[in-house]
């Protein structure tokens, strides 16, 4: 079969099984968009800003495990995509971004809408390709998808000059069955002698903790993790990125750990004698001061990425491989040695943890305080959303206080249901990522928990939701200020609130949503809260934007004491420290 470059590119994406392309056309991508027009296998979703395209593709990837695909033009199209690419890179999300480029002979001449996309994106991609000839298109696309979806996953950029997509130049097309990259072979199966050392360590421990992160989700190893804990029955904590990989309603679950983790999770980590770090990377939001991190613990680190191990915290045992394969291997060995595990061995540890759980630092009893004399508490909003959606919704969020409240009070029992920008902390992520999730799962409830600061960073996508009829539920936890910044200013800058307020310039979000053809609901009193949220979920065929005015003075607790604190040093409420 002979094809032109533009058709080759699109046919390659079809061969990869792509369902959706999130993008925005422009001069350098015109030939490609003509090919998109001529096919029926994939749907192109026209966003309102390229950042929205990358986050939508990212949300699709996080929810499905399949790579998200983005198409943008050169220059501003490409640079607008950068924030979304960096977001995917920090959270190891598989994504393929195709950027148009000016014609080959114009590169380097400051041509109209020219920018060095490969150069700009270099530190935030797993790999990138410049297409130098049509005949290489199929191989490059194959390799891009292979790199994006294997090993430690991540975004890959393909930059393609306009002349390479010229519809008049035809070349032989054959899509390769396999990508063969001789200098790329990420580990899959673990070393069995390392696995044996891990099993020995578990058998000999008295205070073990499983600390599982996003790598466990991207490796689809949730079942294997649950199986492991059916054998060994030890406490489990999840990172912000790992929520849902172990059921939040399980009695062994400690909640999230780290900066805004629960008291019991941070105390268990600090006092553990064995930490099984599974697909987690000891981020600074987890360790607090690394020198003071878990002083008594032996560290076992499962990771697919060599460079993550012993980067922050020195590992005593490292298991390289896909987390799924490593856990399968552990489970096989543990099963054979079950008689060596003393069932009562962890009793004292479980009792200690039960004591810590009583203090937790969260507030689950706020329903009792819901009188109109009190302002609405943001934590209560999330708890009502949890109840009304029966804990089964996909929840996307933005960044700030509402994100932490969502992570703390929406209890995820399944992986890939909690979609948030953990590593980069990208405001504006929530709404477009919810679009990607809703397209992937049109019959599932998709909720975006956001704040009035974050939502305005990508609010233009309300128009996209209208065009493609995406009935997402948006809950805007509106505290009239950049709440997390304000919290830090309260705690560390004697309450000097520098540039965190919009004064009286906020839009009326209810009317704004209605102007896009959506349903708007405004909630200002506790007496409207439960019924308002239930009403939003009762509307099935329309996007509902619920603007909820909450207590502007609320802080997120627990909170680690920084700098120089350890994991046992936490604020548990205003003015109350451990």
């Amino acid at each position, binding site marked *: 079969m002979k094809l032109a470059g533009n058709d080759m590119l699109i046919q390659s994406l079809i061969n990869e099984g792509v369902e959706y392309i999130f993008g925005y056309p422009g001069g350098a991508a015109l030939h490609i968009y003509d090919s998109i027009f001529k096919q029926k296998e994939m749907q192109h979703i026209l966003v309102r800003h390229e950042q929205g395209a990358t986050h939508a593709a990212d949300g699709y990837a996080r929810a499905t495990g399949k790579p998200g695909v983005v198409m943008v033009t050169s220059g501003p199209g490409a640079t607008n995509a950068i924030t979304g690419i960096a977001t995917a890179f920090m959270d190891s999300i598989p994504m393929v971004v195709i950027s148009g480029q000016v014609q080959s002979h114009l590169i380097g001449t400051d041509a109209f809408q020219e920018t060095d996309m490969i150069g700009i994106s270099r530190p935030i991609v797993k790999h990138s390709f410049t297409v130098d000839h049509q005949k290489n298109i199929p191989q490059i696309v194959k390799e891009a998808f292979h790199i994006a979806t294997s090993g430690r996953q991540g975004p890959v950029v393909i930059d393609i000059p306009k002349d390479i997509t010229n519809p008049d130049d035809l070349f032989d097309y054959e899509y390769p069955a396999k990508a063969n990259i001789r200098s790329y*072979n990420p580990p899959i199966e673990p070393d069995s002698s390392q696995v044996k050392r891990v099993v020995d360590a578990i058998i000999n421990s008295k205070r073990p903790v499983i600390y599982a992160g996003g790598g466990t989700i991207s490796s689809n190893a949730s079942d294997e993790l649950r199986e492991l804990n059916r054998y060994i029955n030890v406490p489990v904590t999840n990172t912000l990125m790992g929520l849902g990989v172990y059921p939040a309603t399980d009695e062994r679950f400690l909640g999230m750990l780290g900066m805004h983790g629960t008291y019991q999770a941070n105390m268990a980590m600090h006092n553990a004698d064995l930490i099984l770090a599974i697909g987690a990377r000891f981020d600074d939001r987890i360790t607090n001061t690394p020198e003071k991190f878990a002083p008594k613990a032996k560290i076992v680190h499962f990771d697919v*990425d060599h460079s993550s191990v012993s980067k922050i915290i020195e590992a005593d045992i490292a298991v390289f491989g896909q987390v799924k394969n490593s856990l399968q291997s552990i489970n096989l060995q543990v099963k054979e040695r079950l008689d060596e595990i003393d069932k009562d061995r962890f009793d004292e540890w479980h009792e200690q943890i039960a004591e810590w759980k009583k203090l937790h630092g969260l507030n689950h009893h706020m329903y009792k305080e819901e009188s109109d004399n009190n302002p609405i508490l943001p934590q209560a909003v999330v708890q009502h959303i949890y109840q009304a959606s029966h804990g089964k919704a996909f929840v996307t969020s933005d960044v700030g206080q509402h994100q932490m409240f969502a992570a703390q009070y929406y209890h995820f029992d399944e992986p890939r249901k909690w979609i948030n920008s953990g590593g980069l902390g990208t405001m504006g992520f929530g709404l477009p990522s919810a679009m990607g999730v809703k397209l992937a799962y049109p019959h599932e409830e998709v909720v975006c928990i956001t704040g009035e600061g974050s939502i305005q960073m990508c609010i233009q996508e309300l128009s996209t939701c209208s065009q493609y009829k995406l009935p997402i539920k948006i809950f805007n936890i509106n505290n009239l200020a950049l709440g997390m910044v304000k919290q830090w200013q309260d705690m560390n800058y004697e309450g000097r609130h520098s540039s965190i307020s919009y004064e009286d310039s906020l839009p009326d979000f209810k009317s704004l949503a209605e102007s896009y053809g959506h349903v708007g609901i405004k909630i200002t009193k506790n007496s409207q809260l439960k019924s308002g949220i239930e009403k939003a979920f009762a509307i099935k065929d329309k996007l509902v934007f619920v603007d909820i005015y909450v207590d502007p003075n609320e802080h997120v607790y627990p909170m680690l004491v920084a700098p120089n604190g350890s994991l046992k040093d936490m604020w548990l409420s205003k003015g109350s420290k451990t």
Partner: protein
Amino acid sequence: MIERQLTLIMENKPGALARVVGLFHQRGYNIDSLHVDPIEDLAPYKFIEDELDIKLASREVSRLIIKTTVGDSLMRQILRQINKLIEVIAVSDDESTYLKGILRDENLL
């Protein structure tokens, strides 16, 4: 902080060098000297083909020599990050050699 010499074997392709150099620049470390040339005689690197089960051709790969001044733990991190780059086939300092997915303790390059 010690002066060190790193040797890399990588694909002889545009952009590969920039990825390596970027890892130093990103962390604020200076490169004291840098030398790169395509490899014509592959005989000394036969072990790479054997270990990775691949076939290299003359001038298809380049050898890159970098001199830099970096602390111990950071050096290990940089070596691992370099080894992660898709176009790098092997990297080595005075103590260890990383082939894709394989760490060898003796210096082979």
